[in-house]
């Protein structure tokens, strides 16, 4: 009996052990992506994976699919160029560096507005700037600077909704099954799809010894998110108190089922 999975043909076996920390959420997101490709029965020759900087920029080392690596902040611009070159391909952009809203903000807004067929998966691990007094456009709070953060952060799902994205969702990696079906919906969506993932980071997020291992960190993310609220776009802000809203937020392929 052949014990290998069908997913194994998408994974490069030279890349193991992977570069990520034990229990990082990016591996779970990658598994959901590959199983979504398998479940939707998409030809893998039509898929282009675009990656940038950061931890999720190492995804292209793990895959045997056709990958493109971009400069800092210009991931979506590079994805638009790949889509212009091959209009029938499915372009998936994995973003982890928030500079795609700093130097590449016009490309994000233009892709939303023109309904380019790109799936942007933003893996948000709350590590915005490792240096002191270094602020990114979506930094909700700062511990490294003396004064904190005076700027209001971007709210990515609300921004994508204003600019006209067709599919918006937000998940945590512990909801991997929901994330898989969300990615299958995004493959079938004719416009720009934004999926934000609140991913745990074990190394940099240390809460004074309260959270000791990976399992507690995963459960912390699971307990502080809420999926069953309706119409609460104000609760999408990561800075607000109370539980963070996750789930499918907008789906233009099926407008009657919008929340």
């Amino acid at each position: 009996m052949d014990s290998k999975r069908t997913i194994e043909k998408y994974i490069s076996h030279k890349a193991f052990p992977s570069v990520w920390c034990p229990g990082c959420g990016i591996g779970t997101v990658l598994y959901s992506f590959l199983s979504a490709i398998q479940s939707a029965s998409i030809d893998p020759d039509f898929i282009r994976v675009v990656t940038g900087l950061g931890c999720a920029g190492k995804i292209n080392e793990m895959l045997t699919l056709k990958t493109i690596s971009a400069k800092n902040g210009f991931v979506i611009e590079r994805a638009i160029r790949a889509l212009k070159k091959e209009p029938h391909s499915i372009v998936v952009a994995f973003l982890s560096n928030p500079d795609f809203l700093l130097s590449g903000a016009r490309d994000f807004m233009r892709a939303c507005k023109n309904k380019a067929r790109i799936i942007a998966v933003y893996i948000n691990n709350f590590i915005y700037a490792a240096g002191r007094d270094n602020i990114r456009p979506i930094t909700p709070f700062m511990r490294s600077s003396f004064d904190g953060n005076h700027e209001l952060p971007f709210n990515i799902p609300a921004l994508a909704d204003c600019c006209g994205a067709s599919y918006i969702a937000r998940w945590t990696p512990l909801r991997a099954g929901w994330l898989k079906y969300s990615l299958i919906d995004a493959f079938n969506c004719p416009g720009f799809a934004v999926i934000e993932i609140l991913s745990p980071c074990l190394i940099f997020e240390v809460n004074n010894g309260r959270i000791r291992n990976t399992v507690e960190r995963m459960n912390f993310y699971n307990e502080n998110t809420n999926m069953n609220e309706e119409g609460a776009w104000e609760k999408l802000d990561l800075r607000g108190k109370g539980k963070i809203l996750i789930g499918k937020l907008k789906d233009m392929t099926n407008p009657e089922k919008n929340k």
Partner: protein
Amino acid sequence: MKIKIHINEERCKGCGICVEVCQTSVLEISDEKNSQGYFVPVARYPDKCISCSLCEMLCPDFAIWIVNCLDEVSS
């Protein structure tokens, strides 16, 4: 036995998510180390497995997977 649990010990990093997630407590962290120095999980009670494949979905390192032999015969 109809359900087989495969664990690739060289890929595992010992995060313990599969042990936490398993609803029927099939898996346990063993005392053996792999070549990286991590304690790898082992299927202690494989008869309890119901092949929900939650451990397979949540493993970040593609180290564990479930094969249901009934599905293979039918397909």
